[in-house]
């Protein structure tokens, strides 16, 4: 493993200043489950790590019926996974959390870390995008809140400028008429990066779908919304024939690559299968 300098930040301001002063090859460190592996495997050149685990106020989880669920940057995947509220209101997110790494990894990794790594195959991103989540970004001069769907700019890349820090995520409240699902396609059942992931979040009113968001993981440079498929589904009863056509449309909308995990064609095929299955599973909430 290559050597690096360790810095412990006491406040957000301190962390932000360190990132600015230390320059390139400096990274925030929370769970470390990805960063340390990347250093060890020489996938990322790291000169400095800035530990944010001791900054107060980043471990909170709150929920209310108007603003929804908000969790801080230090909230671990395992903690959120075990929260009954998440299982009840955000079953798509719950499924994604439960499918990430192993129990040991989940007890260490943070959800915000999974998001900021900006991998197109990150499990937690599709359900959060499907649910319309927002990202809270700290900077010493310009704090901002942006939709998660606008956060990513490419594989491993986001809109964060140097010195900016994601402090938390807010997911809008879930309502009675929501149906949600996340399906992950991998080569095995645990300790797996998704070959394809599909998250669905939909709203039914009197048997008609008045809103649906479909987020596709690992089939593009960032997690994608299948917006044309969504348009085909809104205002319908989500009958089998329409779902089939929309799934085919989602296949057209994605832009997968081929690698050692799967070919582009197979990934596209799986988008078709999993989109249909995810919608079906989301509808089981009303069964």
């Amino acid at each position, binding site marked *: *493993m*290559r*050597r690096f300098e360790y810095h412990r930040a006491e406040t957000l301001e301190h962390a932000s200043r360190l990132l600015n002063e230390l320059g390139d090859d400096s990274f925030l460190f929370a769970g470390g489950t990805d960063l340390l592996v990347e250093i*060890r*495997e020489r996938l990322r050149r790291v000169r400095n790590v800035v530990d944010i685990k001791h900054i107060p106020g980043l471990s909170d989880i709150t929920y209310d019926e108007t603003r929804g669920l908000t969790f801080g940057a230090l909230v671990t995947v395992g903690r959120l996974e075990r929260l009954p509220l998440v299982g009840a209101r955000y079953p798509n997110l719950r499924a994604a959390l439960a499918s990430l790494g192993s129990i040991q990894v989940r007890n260490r990794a943070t959800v915000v870390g999974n998001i900021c790594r900006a991998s197109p195959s990150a499990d937690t991103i599709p359900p959060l995008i499907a649910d319309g989540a927002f990202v809270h970004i700290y900077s010493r001069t310009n704090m901002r809140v942006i939709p998660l769907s606008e956060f990513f700019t490419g594989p491993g890349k986001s809109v964060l400028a140097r010195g900016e820090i994601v402090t938390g995520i807010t997911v809008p409240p879930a309502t009675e008429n929501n149906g949600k699902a996340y399906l992950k*396609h991998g*080569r*095995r*059942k*645990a*300790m*797996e*990066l998704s070959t394809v992931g599909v998250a669905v979040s939909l709203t039914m009113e009197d048997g008609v779908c008045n809103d649906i968001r479909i987020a596709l993981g690992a089939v593009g440079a960032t997690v994608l919304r299948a917006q044309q498929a969504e348009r085909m589904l809104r205002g319908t009863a989500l009958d089998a024939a329409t779902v089939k056509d929309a799934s085919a449309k989602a296949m057209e909308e994605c832009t997968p690559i081929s690698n*050692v*995990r*799967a*070919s582009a064609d*197979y990934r596209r*095929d*799986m988008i078709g*299968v999993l989109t249909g299955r995810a919608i079906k599973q989301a509808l089981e909430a009303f069964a």
Partner: protein
Amino acid sequence: MNMTTPIEKRDFKIVGKSVRRDDVLEKVTGEAQYTGDIKLPGMLHGKIKRAAIAHARIKAIDVSKALAYPGVKAVLTHENVPRVLHYGSPHPRSASCTKDQYILDDKVRFWGEGIAAVAAISEEIADEALDLIEVEYEALPAVFEPEDAAQPGAPLIHDVGPGGNLVLDPVRVNRGDVEAGFAEADFVLEGTFAGGRPHPAYMEPNVCIADWDGSNKLTFWTSTQTSFMVRGILAEVLGLPLTKVRVLVDHMGGGFGAKQDLFQHEFLCALLAKETRRPVKMEFTRHETFVAGRSRHPCRIWLKQGFKNDGTLVARDMKLVYDSGAYGSHGPGVTIVGTTAATSLYRCENVRLEGRCVYTNTPINGAFRGYGVVQSYYALDIQMDEAAERLGMDPAELKLKNVVRAGDIAPSGHPIIGHGLEICLKHGIDVLDWKTLRGRDRTPDPKRPHIRKGWGIGCEMHGSSAYPGIKEQGNATVKINEDGTVTLLTGAAGLGTGAHTALAQIVAEELGVRFEDVGVIHGDTDVVPWDIGAFASHTTYLVGTAAKMAAGKVRAAVLERAAMKLQVSPAEVDLSEGKVFVIAEPDRAMTVSEAMGPSRGIPAANIVANGTYEPTKSYSFAAHFTEVDVDIETGIVEVKRVVPVHDVGRVIHPIAAQGQIEGGIQQGIGHTLTEDYVIDKKTGRSLNAGLVDYKMPLSMDMPDIETIILEAAPDPGGPWGAKGVGEDPIIAIGPSIANAIHDAIGIRFHHYPITPEDVLKALREKGA
């Protein structure tokens, strides 16, 4: 687990019982010392610079910057290490047959090959110094597929050996008259089969520590299955007598056969320690266990067989090509064993086999559980299933008709002992009520309409011991102490299989003492008797018999001494559960401790005995019955249930035997469905040299396994009829899965791994 014992009823005290392994507590508490845990004062850390090109000549290598880097103590390249040509495998002229390796060479033969080594005061500094070594290559044309390497005019990887990129001359086996057999056949099946490159991915990466003392003696800790072989080749290459090389191995985190080679890092570690006069540790990263470790030989098999309409097999013609990677390693052994194995399993009098092994510019393939047979029996068993389909017969019935029986000539050239395979098949058929399974309602479950279910059978047989390739020898020394406790000295390595526990059980049983009273000393070549190594499913069979022989001699000496003390003749006493008694008057007795200890006027005795055993070979058998779910929309195959029925002769430790079977099945499921070490066919670069993208099944992926062990065909060569169990379970599971997939969706796959993409593509081609 079920066990049935139709053989000799004997009141065993210790054998056949799942006694508690004495290494369990230290392992679960983390106290067990593995090689990587050892730290010596002043110890340096070694790292290897690896080539980023598949085939090249090194024009220049400049280490000046690395040597000047603070903390670096030594750098070795091909320019300053001894240029000694050596065998990759420690079994010269059997597993290896050509010396084709240098410690470091001026030629690179595969992407990831070591080209230089650094020793530094920390692992980090050594690692950083690697980047400062500047190498200038002259690229050479490379070949990555055995088909290409075997073409006339293909770039030659070695200038030793038979030429044409062959690792050894083709292995040819002819029995009977194949042409006459085909002329007699009612129909002929012909097919090609292909196996991927599964990797053993043992938990403990390769690691060694070298330390030279003031008398120029090398002490060498290493994670190896073959410590005496390491000693021998190190001494040979370093020009030392065996008294000056001591090899130590204690606990190991697995090996699965692959830790039998002499690895480049082992030589380099010894040389770096010599150069710096300080201890040096070298430990592979997970990445290195792939690129610099050993995997299973990828293979291409062409198989043509002739059948009569009654299912009789009348001709078998088979050509096998194994991909050795860049060096010979176990290529010859694997080719010989894998090819000759195809004389058997299913009876056929007319057989023509040709096995080849070819160099390619890819990482080295070596010994791995199932040693060439995984590949050849995958083809044989699947084609037998196809023949059943063609005949409209139940595959169980056809396999039962054709499996080898007692007296048939085994691949070793000896008659097979017992109807083991027939009994395994019959037992599984009965337990599962196979006919009902075959004739079951196949309508998909309306709740899961995309799932198709299938059942398949795979058969295998595998030898305990590497005979006749290696004339094997097992050794054991047993001594009894004055308090009645017993020490077994063995050179057999403990890979984590529980072999030492089984050996201690054998000694305790034969001697007549408690299991707890037997201690095992192992893993020090200066102390324990010479050992050939832990491989070929032979430790219990071979070393177990040697230990039993030695224990028997000690028992006789104890009886003699006790008889003297009891003032009777040795024939009048017996020994059981740590007590010597006069047979006619059981109350006249003394403990072994009283017999051995000093008493008035008589000092304690030094009783030591050796056992040496040179066996031929026994065969173990298994039939695996496997159920799969195939998702026809995603192509995902899930193994749901496996009923493995094994005959392993006398079972010494039932839980350990069961563990071997379950572990082999887990590995075999991986090989058949998800595991493949992928080499880029354009550059020779490794595409998934790590556990992120090399996917072994985990506990959650495991099916229900209902192990059945039959003690149906004990072999007189093993202790109380015991045979090997280590390799068997990985062989039968593969074809059983492929056959189950066919049963589910009507598609034959002739390769592994069978990926979801393959399944989906085949389903579409079929128009399902």
